[in-house]
Structure formats: C-alpha cells, structure tokens
C-alpha cells in the first residue's frame, strides 16, 4: 500500500479540516465550484471532505486498528486536478462561519499534493521551469526585465537601488516588467511616483520573481529560494519601504516572506502609498475626467490583505469621477478567475469567471472598470473581449496619471 505523506500538511491545516462544519456556506459563492461551474469536489467543503477521507483511510483510528487502505490513484489524481481548479480567492474564508483560514489551507493542500507526487499539473510545469531558470514566468531573459523603463528614463529618474541609496524600492513584478500589455502599469506607477518627487529605485535586471506563482502552486521550497535571493537584495538596498504595484507580489512579500526570512522594510502596495501622497498634499489630481467608474477588488489586495479603502479614496479624489460599487464588492467581491494558477491550467474556466465579473461591472452602468492588479487586469480584459463588452478597463495608476498629467 502506498501511504500518503501527511507530514507536509501543517498542524493547523489538519486541525482546520476537522473543524469544518460541512455547512456548505462556502459552496454557493465559490467562483470555481459553485458559480462558473457546479462541481462539489472543487468547492472548499468538497476538497476538505475528500482529502480528510483519504488520510483517515490510512491514519484514522479504524486504520490503526484494522490496517490502512489503499487509495486508488485515479481518485488521488482527481482530487489534485480539482484542488488546482481553485483560484484561492478567499471568498470561502469570508463566508466561513467557523472562521477557518481557508486560504492557507488550499495553499498547504497543494504543498501536500506536490509532496505526494500528484502535482504540479503539467500545465504549470512550463511556468515553473521558466521561473526556476529565468526568474520570471514568461520565459524572458533576465536582461530584458528593466526594458520597460527605457520609455520614461528621460521623464522620471528611477535609481538603480543596488547602486544608489533610495527611500523607496519599487518592486515591479514579472507581469508589469515583461507583458507588453501590462507594461503601462509600471510606467504609470513610475510617473506617479515621479510626480510626487519620491526618491525611488528598482532592482533593474537583478529583480527576481517574487515566487507567488510557486507558492500558490504548492512549491514552497523553490519559492523560498527565490524569496531568500530577493530578501538579500532588499537588505543591500537599505530602502525603508518596498513598494509593489502588483497585488500578488504585495501579498507574497508582505505575508509569505516573513515566514522565510526577515523583511526589514515596510511593505506597501501602490494604492496605499498614493493615498498617503494625496493625504499629505504631495499629489493633487487636478484634471477633470467626468467618468462613472466601478472598482474591482483584487483578491490578493482585498480579502487577503484587507486593502479596500485606499483604492476607493484615490478614485474619489479624481475630479469628475463618480465611483459606483458592484453588487459584490470589498470582501464579497467576485474573483477575476486568474488566481491560483487557474488561468494557466484552466483558461476556459478563468474566462467564464472573468465574464461573470464583467457582468457585475456592466450592471452598475459604469463605463470604466478600474483595478489594481496585473493578473486581474489580464483576466478582466480577456473577459471584456470574450463578451464584446463596451467597458473600458484601466489600472488605477493609469486613471490617476490621466488626472495628474492634465
């Protein structure tokens, strides 16, 4: 009998699996198990019950008394497949009456699947190899990482943080650095920082992937290696603040890095940083934009980190802009469908979820949909294109820059 290795499951995860009350509150609002498709095994309750059933077959009291039982490989593979259909959006954590930290449960469940040779999924392997070999998920050379900044090098002074001391280290993130469609996010962030005369720099080509993708797919050991490399560079810069414009990098550096090494700087998301600049009068959006805007809360920024007010404050500070909320907003915000490796492994499912979010946005009557995460941006844009929606999508720094540059 092949015995499952449960030593990769955390003590708290095992405890939380027993604490699940099976109430099913999580199933109705689960974007991948209850909304875009109905599949109990994808829902939080389904995953918990199945995994618990499997390890109890081999470690439970009955197994102890009568001997453990083998678990058919196809059943284990099915669980692995379904576990990766989760975007780890954290909606289940919001609604769970027992207040279970489901986000860490799913990430840990994936570590368990990797440890037992059931994951990562083939679709994720190429990305993982790319991160391990090129320090980014896009199979792009390291030397091209800082290419995005060439466009504005005369406009804004961006220091090389490893050579010159700066107050703020801007951690650009792989998506904004390499994806030509998202590059504007890095450019606009830099422009906004420049407008506020912020003393900032980047790690240029020495910036490594934050490891978010690896952590979300269950590869903690590889992610820890990346994290340690980045932490060593953070330390060398001596910057007091690490700023990210990517919600995924923000979550990773703020929440996961302290479990791997010491983060001596304050970690902030661009929306928090800009709010401070506006509050202190260092940034004054002045150009009137006359737009009805709705805001999509990225899961990594909202539910995972509780940043809800800052993006809204920024939007409301722009003259002429009217913010209208979607029916599901803040901690109840619907996921965009991209997280947790779903966009890579299950693109159709991701697009379906994005479509639901676009419908939410359309119902508000807004013409402009704003978000503050590159993955959400990619996913929502795909949803807009697929639905042929008239909504225009903008990153928060883009709309802010439009008001600042007037």
């Amino acid at each position, binding site marked *: 009998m092949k015995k499952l290795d449960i030593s990769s*499951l955390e003590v708290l995860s095992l405890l939380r699996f027993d604490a699940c009350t099976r109430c099913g509150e999580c199933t109705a609002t689960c974007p991948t198990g209850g909304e875009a498709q109905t599949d109990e095994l994808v829902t939080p309750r389904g995953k918990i019950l199945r995994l618990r059933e499997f390890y109890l077959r081999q470690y439970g009291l009955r197994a102890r008394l009568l001997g453990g039982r083998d678990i058919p490989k196809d059943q284990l593979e099915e669980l692995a497949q379904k576990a990766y259909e989760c975007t780890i959006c954290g909606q289940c954590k919001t609604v769970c009456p027992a207040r279970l930290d489901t986000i860490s449960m799913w990430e840990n469940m994936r570590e368990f699947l990797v440890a037992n040779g059931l994951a990562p999924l083939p679709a994720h392997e190429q990305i993982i190899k790319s991160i391990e070999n090129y320090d980014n998920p896009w199979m792009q050379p390291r030397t091209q990482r800082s290419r995005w900044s060439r466009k504005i090098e005369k406009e804004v002074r961006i220091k090389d943080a490893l050579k010159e001391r700066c107050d703020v280290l801007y951690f650009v993130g792989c998506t904004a650095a390499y994806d030509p469609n998202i590059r504007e996010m890095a450019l606009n962030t830099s422009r906004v920082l420049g407008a506020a005369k912020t003393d900032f720099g980047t790690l240029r080509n020495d910036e490594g992937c934050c490891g978010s993708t690896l952590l979300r797919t269950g590869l903690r050991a590889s992610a820890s290696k990346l994290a340690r490399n980045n932490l060593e560079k953070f330390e060398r810069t001596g910057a007091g603040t690490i700023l990210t414009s990517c919600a995924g990098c923000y979550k990773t550096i703020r929440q996961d890095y302290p479990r791997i090494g010491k983060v001596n700087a304050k970690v902030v998301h661009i929306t928090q940083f800009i709010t401070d600049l506006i509050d202190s009068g260092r940034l004054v959006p002045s150009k009137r934009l006359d737009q009805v805007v709705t805001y999509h809360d990225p899961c990594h920024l909202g539910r995972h980190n509780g940043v809800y007010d800052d993006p809204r404050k920024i939007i409301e500070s722009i003259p002429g802009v009217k913010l209208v909320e979607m029916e599901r907003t803040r901690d109840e915000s619907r996921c965009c469908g991209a997280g947790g490796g779903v966009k890579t492994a299950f693109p159709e499912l991701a697009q379906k979820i994005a479509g639901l979010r676009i419908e939410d946005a359309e119902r508000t009557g807004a013409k402009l949909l704003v978000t503050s995460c590159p993955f959400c941006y990619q996913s929502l844009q795909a949803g807009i294109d697929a639905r042929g929606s008239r909504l225009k999508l903008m990153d928060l720094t883009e709309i802010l820059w439009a008001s600042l540059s007037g």
Partner: protein
Amino acid sequence: MSGARYLKDRLGLYLLFSAAIVIFAAVVMLLPYDTIYVRDRAYLAIFLVSIILCVFVFLLGTMYNALLWMRGRGLVGTPEQRFLKLVPRALGFVRRRFRPFASSVYNDAIHLPKLKEASVTRWITHFLILGGFVLTLVLDLVATFSLDIAKYQPMIQNDGWAKLWIRDFGFELTGSMMLIGLAIACARRFVIRPKTLRTELPDAVSVLFLLAVVLGGFVLEGIGIAGRIPGHESNQAYSFLGYALSLLMPSSAGGIYDQAWLIHGLMSALLIAYIPFSKLFHMIASPIAIEAERFLPSEVGR
C-alpha cells in the same frame, strides 16, 4: 531519537490519559445516587459502567484526533511529544487570557456573527441545538453536584424551587431548545434540501442520533409522569412537554420506566462516545482551530 525516549513519551501520554479516565471513573462510582429516578440498582450499575466506557472512548477518540493533528508540519518531535508539550502551553494560554478566550469561544461557537448575517434560520437552528446541548451538560453537572455531593434540599424535595425550576423546567427547556433546533435541521436536511446542504450518512446519523436522545428524554419524562414515578410529580407548568406526552400514555407505562431510563442513559452515553468520530466533533475542533492560531508557535503555519 532513541526507542527508549519514544516509549517514555508514549507512556507519559497514556499515563496522563489513564489518570484522567481513572479519576472520572472514581468520581462516577463513588457518588451515592440516593435521589436518582431509576429504581433498579442493576440498571444504574449498567449505566455507570457504560458511561465510563463511553467517556473512555470519547477521550481516546479526541486524543487520537489531536495526535493526528500533531503529525503535521511545524512542530518538533513525535506526535506524542508535541501533544505533551502543547497541552500545558494551551492551558497556560487559557489561564492567562481567560476573559478574551471565553469571549472568543462565545463569539465563534455560539454567537457566530457570520452565520447570523448569512441566514437567521440557520443561526437559530445552530443556537438552539448547541445552546441546548451545552446547557443540558451544565444542568447535569449542577444537578449531580447538588443532589449527590451538596445534598441541597430544594433540589431534592418535590416542591423545592431548585427541583421545579432546574430539574424539571430547566431540562425541559434545554431539551425543547434542542428538539426545535433538530426539527428545523431535519426539515432542511430531509425535506427542503437546499442546494448547499449535502447529506451523507455521517450527517444524517449525527442529526438523527441526537434527535433520538432528545426525544427519548421527553418520552422518559412522560412515562415517569404517567406512571407516577417518585420525583415526577411535576405538572404542566414545569415539565410541559413531558406532561403533554404523559397524557398519551397509560399509567401502566410506569412499569417500563427503568428499562426506558436505561435505554435513554445508554443512548446518551453512546452519543458522547460517538462525538470524536462524527461531524459533531467540530464543536471541539472549531474553537481550538481559531484559538490555536494564537497559542501555537509561528512555525505551524499561521
């Protein structure tokens, strides 16, 4: 790690466990039970042995579940060592922060604001079942202490305030709470069947088992009142449901009172033994899961 050390840890844990069960057994066996309703002492003896065995199974199952948690990543040593280290740590945490701990347990186990927000019906159902269950346990302890240790007369005398309000009305009320809660739960689970609710054998068994125990309690009370068993002279004002049931029973029902008492007692004891192996175990695991984040070392994955 040496085999001797491992054996020592296991031995330590099982000694601790044995001590707990021996103390419980001693207390159970030493109580005089002068005022107990059942007349046949043989039935009482069967019940006492059963409750000791069932509490033994309950503790063993709970400990075994906890040892399974201890197999997880984040702590050092064997599961037994980890468990032995964590027990004093957890007790120390509760002692040091008793008020926030109690308020947190109340909030997360009984008040459940998230559930209340999601569905008032489900919140009421949960409140009635859990509240009734916990209050019944508390009343049981109070009654046992007052009757068998303190010999508190108002609890013993038929017209004593404590007898009427605690032994008669109190148990009737907590039983009714559970009964109403379980009726709603059964209606949702077996009749309405909302999409989010999944009823598998363990779910059905848990609900029906609890319902059988609660109903059994009322039937027993009805038999006692109908059969004029000493201690059951209460009227409809105190034992309202038991009294109503007694109207449906002949006075000869009193002849099977002892058997009914034993069946109810055995079912209650079995329910206790079943908890660690059922979905009811979330009563214990959920508050621990929430509080554990605060007292476990950070390496366990907060």
